[in-house]
């Protein structure tokens, strides 16, 4: 199985743990990820607020750079995933927009036809393309007793979800259960983490983060699993600020789903970037899976 791979900026540094665990897990599963050569930032939500055509052209450069022998690209970050998918869809359904984007791309000697590359999230690839048996076959260390809150966030699930439900998605829940772990009911699983509001409107962002943490506590989760670097950063790195803002004392570890997949596959925590999270996952992992951490 070969896919183009668009890591996105966060995975280069602030979410290196996500990138490490993705590569390790895909390697074990025989999924070949071929990184797009010289990819650029997708502009997150920021370019869309300034200049629509530039936002689209910047994103389309990445689609145009996908190796012509590949027709699917895996984007692990929710914002990248949505941006690539949105521009691909809008180019396919809006010829006037596609023409303008291609006029801009032509200035760099590039061209892209909407619909050529299918944009995928890794949860979708693991769940749909590999499926239950292939995943279960690789589990050497069932995560029995580990209760996880599967957190999907917004932009993989909406507006273009073509592999799960937009209101109450279940694919990550199922994937987690194949590892032997217990996905707890998590009512806010598709609610927003606040995105860039941590930078511009603390009161709004912190309230959204508080609700997500509280909901996981109420469901007796040991940890929250993310499928987006922004969600992980907001819930993990801002947790202590949220605690002081509201006078609370959350200590909820936030991991990427691929780190848990890797643990179940018998990979070493270090190789999966476990330990890079700010609220340490070690105590709960030690408690629940005595064998996992040395």
């Amino acid at each position, binding site marked *: 199985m070969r896919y183009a791979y668009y890591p996105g*900026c*966060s995975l*280069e*540094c*602030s*979410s*290196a743990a996500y990138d490490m665990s993705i590569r390790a897990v895909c390697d074990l599963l025989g999924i070949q990820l071929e990184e797009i050569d*010289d*990819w*650029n*930032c997708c*502009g*997150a*939500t*920021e*370019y*869309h*607020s*300034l*200049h*629509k*055509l*530039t936002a*689209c*052209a*910047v994103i389309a*450069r990445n689609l145009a750079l996908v190796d012509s022998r590949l027709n699917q690209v895996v984007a692990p970050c929710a914002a990248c995933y949505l941006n690539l998918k949105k521009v691909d869809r*809008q180019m396919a*359904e*809006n010829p*006037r*927009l596609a023409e*303008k984007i291609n006029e*801009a*791309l*032509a*200035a*760099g*000697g*590039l061209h892209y036809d909407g619909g050529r590359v299918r944009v995928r999230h890794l949860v979708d690839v693991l769940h749909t393309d590999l499926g239950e048996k292939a995943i279960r076959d690789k589990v050497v260390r069932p995560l029995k007793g580990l209760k996880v809150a599967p957190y999907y966030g*917004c*932009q993989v699930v*909406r*507006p273009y979800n073509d592999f799960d439900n*937009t209101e109450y998605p279940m694919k990550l829940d199922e994937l987690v259960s194949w590892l032997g772990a217990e996905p707890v009911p998590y009512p806010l699983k598709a*609610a*927003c983490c*606040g*995105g*860039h*509001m941590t*930078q*511009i*409107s603390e009161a*709004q962002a912190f309230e*959204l983060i508080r609700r997500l943490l509280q909901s996981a506590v109420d469901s007796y989760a040991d940890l929250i699993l993310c499928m987006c670097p922004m969600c992980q950063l907001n819930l993990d*790195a801002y947790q202590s600020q949220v605690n002081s803002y509201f006078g609370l004392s959350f200590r909820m570890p936030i991991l990427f789903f691929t780190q848990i997949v890797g643990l179940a596959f018998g990979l070493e925590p270090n190789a999966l970037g476990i*330990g*890079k999270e*700010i609220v340490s996952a070690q105590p709960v992992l030690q408690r629940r899976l005595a064998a996992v951490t040395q």
Partner: protein
Amino acid sequence: MIQFSTDRRPSFLKEVIEHTPRGERLVHCIQCGSCGGSCPNGADMQYSPRALFALIQADQRDTVLSANTMWCCVSCYYCTTRCPQQIPITEIMYTLKRLAIREGSARNTDAPALAQTFTRYLDAYGRSFEFGLASRFYLFNKPLAMLKMGPLGLSLFTRGRMSLRPTRIKNIQQLQAIIQKAKQLGDEP
């Protein structure tokens, strides 16, 4: 001489539609309020999206562009997927952000400064640069908050999650040529 037009829609409505892919759905709003009710920040909005759409139809350009509604939007797309009339609400919020920033009517929000700082790094390097973005943005927009961000930055740095130097893509000239051309071509999608 009196000019007759066959298109009797208010001019601001036309403008919003022209700037938004699938924006023509806007005229189908039935004022049900599913958007505001679905919004995680709906309670903070001066006008919910529903009310804002009524104001657009009533050609209240200045009121709409100086509202805080679009600055409360976190792009979670709940309103978009729940709208029974398939109005691309989140996309319309982006259009209103662009128009408000262009005309300088964005008030009481640091969102334009964040967007400008972010995209300046993208234009220069082809990659985002979290350390540069955070330090520049806080220094020029909320210097006092830097005190609080120090410990956070340090804990990221000690875990190898913060780089102090930006990465530049190999073919930055190509990206810059594309950006320059796109800016020349104007902004109606």
